[in-house]
């Protein structure tokens, strides 16, 4: 008990603790891959502690927009953005923003589970270590806490030193979520996080998203309409680089304004 309090105190001294999501504002965003105009005049606001789902056919720009929010697309040569993307009022594309600092605030979970070839423990500790945290008691506490938040603790508590590769795909994906949570991001970006998983793992991830919403702002890209309707508060429908419709999920799925949105969600094309 005493020990726990101690850790709590320490964790407060590190600027990681203290959950609550951040708002995201995109204004007049245009995005180019060299000559290809991938996103056209996107205006979108994601509210704090809400889950927003991006839907749309492949190549519509939804993943591109997701990867703009933690500047993951910087890794691709010849990309260019105009307009502004603000996270809690701060322009993340301003020249004095440090990309690694931004990515600490805006965590990401990828389509394919990509744990490092390290132990389960070291996978989750990685983000803390690369961000300069050396206090081992804090790291240990934080790792356990994150794995618990990712609903994985019961399955891995006895094999923390084992390779993460020994886990199943669904467990690996939850480990990747734990890994992202460990550095206490404010926003969690998820790029089709369940598309490579079986139905049971998928429902676990979805339950998890529901839980995590209390502490994080979540943006999820998905091809699964049911998933979008189950997990999200708001849904954005992209088509050919344009944001066609963005509204409450219940509205999008019951009474969409745009005919294109309706066709897509009813499976008439896409």
């Amino acid at each position, binding site marked *: 008990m005493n020990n726990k309090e101690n850790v709590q105190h320490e964790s407060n001294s590190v600027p990681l603790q203290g959950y609550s999501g951040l708002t995201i504002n995109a204004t007049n965003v245009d995005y180019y891959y060299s000559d290809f105009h991938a996103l056209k005049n996107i205006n979108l606001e994601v509210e704090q502690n809400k889950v927003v789902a991006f839907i749309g056919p492949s190549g519509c720009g939804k993943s591109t927009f997701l990867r703009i929010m933690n500047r993951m697309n910087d890794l691709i040569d010849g990309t260019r953005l105009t307009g502004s993307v603000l996270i809690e009022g701060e322009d993340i594309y301003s020249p004095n923003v440090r990309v690694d600092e931004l*990515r600490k605030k805006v965590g990401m979970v990828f389509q394919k589970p*990509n744990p490092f*070839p390290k132990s389960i423990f070291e996978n989750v500790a990685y983000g803390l270590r690369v961000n300069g945290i050396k206090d081992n008691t804090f790291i240990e506490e934080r790792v356990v806490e994150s794995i618990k938040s990712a609903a994985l603790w019961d399955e891995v508590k006895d094999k923390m030193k084992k390779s993460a*590769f020994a886990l199943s795909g669904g467990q690996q994906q939850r480990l990747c979520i734990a890994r992202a949570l460990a550095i206490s991001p404010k926003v969690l970006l998820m790029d089709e996080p369940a598309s490579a998983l079986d139905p049971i793992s998928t429902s676990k991830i979805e339950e998890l998203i529901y839980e995590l919403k209390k502490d994080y702002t979540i943006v999820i890209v998905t091809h699964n309409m049911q998933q979008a309707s189950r997990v999200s508060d708001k849904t954005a429908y992209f088509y050919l680089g344009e944001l066609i419709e963005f509204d409450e999920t219940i509205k999008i799925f019951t009474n969409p304004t745009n005919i294109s949105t309706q066709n897509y969600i009813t499976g008439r094309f896409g």
Partner: protein
Amino acid sequence: MKKEKNKETNTNSNSPHITPPLAGGARSSSSSKRWSQAIAFTIFKLMSYSVVAILILILGFIITKGIGAISWDFLTKAPEEGMTKGGIYPAIIGTLYLVLGSSLFSFPIGIMSGIYMNEYATGNKIATFIRIMTNNLSGVPSVVFGLFGMALFVNTMGFGDSILAGSLTLGLLSLPLVIRTTEESLKAIDFSYREGSLALGATKLQTIQKVVLPMAFPNIITGLILSIGRVSGETAPILFTVAAYFLPKLPTSIFDQVMALPYHLYVISTSGTDIEASRGIAYGTALVLIFIVLLVNILATLLRNYFSNKVKTN
């Protein structure tokens, strides 16, 4: 016609043994297919076995001819009586020094170039240019390296015939191999691992150090060790830069000449004092040389297996 086809599908789905509709008519053509398969398979198999046979033949030849010369004295004593008797100890040590020296030169430069080309300069024109140059460098005949080494290191830079000059020349020779190995090993690491690391706020350098390099390490080390095998057997690059015809004492500094196994083999087979009398020693030397290279290759395999098991759990 259409009706009949339907009927056939129906019976198929009802019967417990589902026969594909093609099976009846296609039997004759499938048997000729099976023959051509079998013939191709046999030819491929024979060809690959013949490679093994050639290696066994060479090894067998060298071992039977050379084993008689091997003794403790042979491995630990200097050549005597015009290199017709005695051992090859200075040549073994010389070769080890040259391998070490060239590795000290080529590994850091090669690995860092490889990292630069795969991690930093991806897709840009400079990297492509470096890659073309590297490929050309690996195509340069080794005797040309020897000549170049003599001109640059021995004469212009004034190192003389020395371990330093020889190591640098051998280093140049193995550089393309080291660069390519590093680059290929890094390329084999899926990009998603880099993304995973960067998404956690790691810098590019941290990502390379903590994720990419450890994963690529088993393959890199294999390449490095294979380049050692290559270097230890080269004759031409050391011909004009370091190798001594006969030098029964060990070097005391990097500016000394040394004997080396491949050159010693060449010397006593072509221009020794008594070629016939040194024949046994020549085969003995060849055996030692082959044994070293083989040992190095086995070591490479063991290390790769060891590290690729280790890297998963660490």
